[in-house]
């Protein structure tokens, strides 16, 4: 379905990835694979570098070391033209939504279709209305400005924008944060649908374990710059990994220390 000649080759393959900001070593020797057509969920505490990982894979940040292969092609240090072609295959939901506030909602969703692929405005608008419908927003929302939306609505518009061009690889950075539980489940279903029906490969970041269990084929836990556990979503409760156990049970005590001082 994805045009990859070798079925066994992972869609995304990250090796020994390292990234620091000054003296802050965020990622250090990180290895992870994501098979074609699967949904990988990355969990981990706040500030461990989940968003940085995604930005490195997309080439929005340049890693200090390591290798990132997409469809078997090395992407670190890719030239602009090749990077643009690669990004044509990707859809991204940013953690902060990152909607363009100078454009109405529908043009936001249509942006990749019109500017990126040169589609006509009328044709693009039809797709936009369908995608907005899929995230539970009516056509009247299309005419509003992003500033007029609630936080949850912005998130859903950003989601519609991420999937508007039916990408092969979709990155969701906290897709359900800030949504009510019912809408969160609608979004989970939508992500599953993208993976199951469109054959997309999805990498999602979340803190929400309900969502992680539902949308993930595989789950990976990021801590201190590397993946400390990964495995099928069904096995997360018997991971035998103390980091994972602490995280999924949400306990303050355990091997993960939150760097806080008592009041």
């Amino acid at each position, binding site marked *: 379905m994805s045009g990859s000649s070798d079925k066994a080759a992972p869609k995304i393959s990250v090796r020994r990835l390292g990234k620091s900001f000054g003296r802050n070593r965020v990622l250090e020797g990180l290895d992870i694979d994501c098979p074609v057509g699967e949904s990988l969920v990355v969990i981990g505490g706040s500030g461990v570098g989940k968003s940085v990982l995604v930005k490195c894979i997309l080439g929005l940040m340049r890693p200090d070391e390591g290798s990132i292969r997409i469809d078997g092609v090395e992407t670190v240090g890719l030239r602009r033209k090749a990077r643009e072609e690669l*990004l044509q295959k990707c*859809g*991204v939901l940013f*953690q902060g939504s*990152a909607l*363009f*506030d100078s454009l109405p909602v529908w043009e936001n969703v249509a942006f990749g279709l019109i*500017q990126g692929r*040169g589609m006509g405005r009328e044709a693009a608008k039809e797709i936009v209305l369908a995608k907005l419908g899929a995230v539970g927003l009516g056509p009247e929302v299309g005419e509003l400005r992003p500033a007029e939306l609630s936080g949850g609505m912005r998130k859903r518009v950003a989601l519609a924008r991420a999937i508007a061009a039916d990408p092969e690889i979709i990155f969701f950075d906290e897709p359900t944060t800030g949504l009510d539980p019912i809408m969160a489940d609608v979004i989970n279903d939508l992500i599953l649908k993208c993976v199951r029906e469109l054959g997309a490969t999805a990498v999602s970041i979340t803190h929400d374990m309900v969502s992680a269990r539902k949308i993930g084929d595989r789950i990976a836990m990021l801590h201190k710059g590397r993946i400390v556990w990964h495995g099928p979503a069904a096995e997360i409760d018997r991971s035998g990994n103390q980091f994972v156990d602490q995280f999924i049970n949400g306990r303050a005590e355990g091997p993960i220390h939150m760097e806080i001082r008592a009041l």
Partner: protein
Amino acid sequence: MNALASIGAATLGFMAATGRIVIFALTALATGLSPPFYLRVILRQMLDIGYFSLPVVGLTAIFTGMVLALQSYTGFSRFQAESAIATVVVLSVVRELGPVISGLMVAGRVGAAMAAEIGTMRVTEQIDALTTLSTDPLRYLVLPRLLAGLVTLPLLVVIADIIGVFGGYLVSIYKFGFNPVTYLDRTFQYLETSDVVSGLVKAAVFGFIISLMGCYHGYHSRGGAQGVGQATTYAVVSASILILVFDYGITQALFAR
């Protein structure tokens, strides 16, 4: 020794910053060599820079022309040279004050707005989002602004020139009782094409500088609202200084002929 070292460091820092800005400008301009071209965005920016700056620029231009007539009257009446006022007003406005004052006003209005808009887009990941939507931010955000600045400021300055000369005319006719026909005659008698052209060349350069500073500082802003505020300040201050520096440079270069 220490003084030398710090002068050296400052010089190196200055050179590095200049280099970065030049590379930024060239990279942005190079995106214009191949499609896609965002004509709608360019037109939108031209409207922003030109049309919406008209009130501010018009107001400053008319007062500049008026005060110029007043001041030159004060000077020239001391040696019975009142007849030169028309020429002085038109030459000063067209060659110098029109471009410089419009440039400074637009730097405050448009340069700041550009830095704030692009800076906000940077810190809210909108620029990253552009990239992932297969749109080069330099091509989509920066190039249209550079071109719009380059093209629009000369147009704006033509209008500022006319309004400025009209300001001088008003004061001369209604305050000093000059003959309108003679005044207008004198206004155009010694005005040469090269005067107008040199003013418009300045305007084009200033327009480019304003957009470049707005885009550069906005594009490289970091650290939330505070960073955006800082970028805005840098954009206005650096554009204003560069306008005055380049003003001297261009005058000097064109003066030789």
